[in-house]
């Protein structure tokens, strides 16, 4: 296939993927009073202001940032040492742990929702953001574990040996030598876990009940439900919620793509 033919194939796909987003953006800029017209006479940011008014959406963004950041931090803190141990220290049962993690990643989230709900209520963590982080971390742990094991395996074995010969303890070699070299892989894993937590709906809508705790997906899912907000405001809210992840896609596309395909192809 020549590059020209490849672009000919790609253009309809681009239209299919991007035109709906263009319509969303246009709707969000459309003055509410002019919706009946074929096209707007001018564009406005009033809808975005209306979506942000009341603070519900802004609070949801803050909630999502906190939950996603904490999830990524926790998942990496658990996965990085374990991946290092599996890749470099020859832990017995390492393969079994990777296999178990893969099995867990295939669980439908609903399969654990009821007992988690009961446990969170008993621990008084229902309807709190920390209560959401632990289930999120466990669900994103498999991805982090697989990616980071791959990352540490890909580093030259001599790196670890040399650090040990130079007098580092195993833990010191991990912290001072391997961890900095593995930083790109760790960033990729963190990014994907962050995106996972940012987008998750089922647990969030199950475990969070008060409006003040809503994450972005919950706030958006329940946004139009009250029939108060015109669709242009809903479009503005969706656009605002989209911008952060689109920025991630554009800025880190190479990293995201390598991350989401690496585990799959090696596994």
């Amino acid at each position: 296939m020549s590059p020209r033919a490849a672009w000919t194939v790609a253009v309809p796909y681009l239209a299919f993927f991007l035109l709906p987003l263009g319509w969303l953006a246009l709707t969000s800029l459309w003055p509410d009073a002019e919706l009946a017209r074929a096209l707007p006479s001018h564009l406005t940011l009033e809808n975005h202001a209306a979506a942000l008014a009341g603070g519900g959406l802004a609070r949801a963004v803050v909630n999502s940032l906190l939950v996603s950041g904490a999830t990524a931090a926790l998942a990496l803190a658990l996965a990085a040492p374990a991946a290092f141990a599996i890749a470099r220290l020859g832990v017995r049962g390492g393969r079994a742990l990777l296999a178990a993690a893969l099995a867990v990643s295939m669980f439908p989230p609903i399969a654990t929702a009821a007992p988690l709900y009961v446990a969170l209520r008993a621990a008084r963590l229902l309807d709190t953001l920390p209560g959401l982080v632990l289930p999120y971390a466990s669900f994103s742990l498999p991805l982090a574990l697989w990616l980071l094991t791959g990352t540490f395996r890909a580093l030259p074995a001599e790196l670890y040996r040399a650090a040990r010969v130079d007098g580092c303890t195993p833990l010191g070699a991990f912290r001072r030598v391997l961890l900095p070299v593995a930083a790109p892989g760790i960033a990729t894993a963190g990014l994907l876990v962050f995106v996972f937590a940012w987008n998750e709906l089922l647990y969030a809508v199950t475990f969070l009940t008060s409006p003040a705790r809503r994450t972005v997906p919950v706030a958006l899912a329940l946004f139009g439900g009250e029939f108060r907000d015109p669709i242009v405001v809903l479009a503005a809210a969706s656009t605002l919620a989209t911008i952060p992840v689109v920025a991630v896609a554009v800025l880190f596309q190479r990293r995201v793509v390598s991350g989401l395909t690496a585990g799959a192809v090696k596994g």
Partner: protein
Amino acid sequence: MSARSERRLGAALVVPAGAVLAIVALGPLLATAWLSLRHRVPVLGEDRFLGLGNYRALAADARFWGALANTAYFTALSVALELLLAVPLALALHHVGRGRGALRAAVLVPWILPTVVAAKLWALLLQPDLGLLARLWPGGAAAVLARPTLALHAAILVDVWKTTPFAALLLLAGLQSIPEDLARAARVDGASALRVFRSITLPLLRPAILLALLFRSLDAFRVFDVVFVLTEGGPGHTTEPLSLYAYKTLLRAGSFGLGAAISLVTFLCVVAIGLAWLSALGERRRPEASP
């Protein structure tokens, strides 16, 4: 420090991750199985052992069979369409020279969006009087989401829009692992581009395709977000998948035992699908392993 103490350190580093998986994922799964054998409605203070009563109730429940059928149909059609669309897209991504990064980033956008946004976006396009479809085709778009068959297909459309990129990127990784000399040699020998694709690329791409089928069908079977936003399972229960039925049974009806039973059936279906694809993957790999 000896190899033995290294191994001891290794075990200490692995334990926290293993413990979290056991306590927050495997434990609750077993608890779901246990809960599914009970009649439990916390709001009413009811909690007693029921045996297989919840499963018997499901066997006689038309809404359950409908949800199972919806989920199976959604999974089969959306995954089939995604894979069919993903193959040409992966080939295009593989062969564009300049601008590949930009193309990849553009393709990545639907996949990285929250599913909630994807569903809201399509609800907007299909909106009966002000949506894009209604403007382009007045009358033709009347209430797509209010008609059972159309509504389920709209949900499938959203899923295809959102996850075809993921399937294509998996296939792209597969394409990149195929040595280029193979196709070049075949071309030199006079094979047409189509012939090269059918006789060389496609067979070598088979493991990647099966892998994409595995990941996508497991993911599609647990569909929740798209339908929750698009139709909430309506009209009636005609678009309701298993995850949504289980969610409503748990949270709205407050019936934890029955909800757990629906959840466990969903889990068992996912296991069955996973094992089926894995055995297909294993069969394809074995002959290649001993050339």
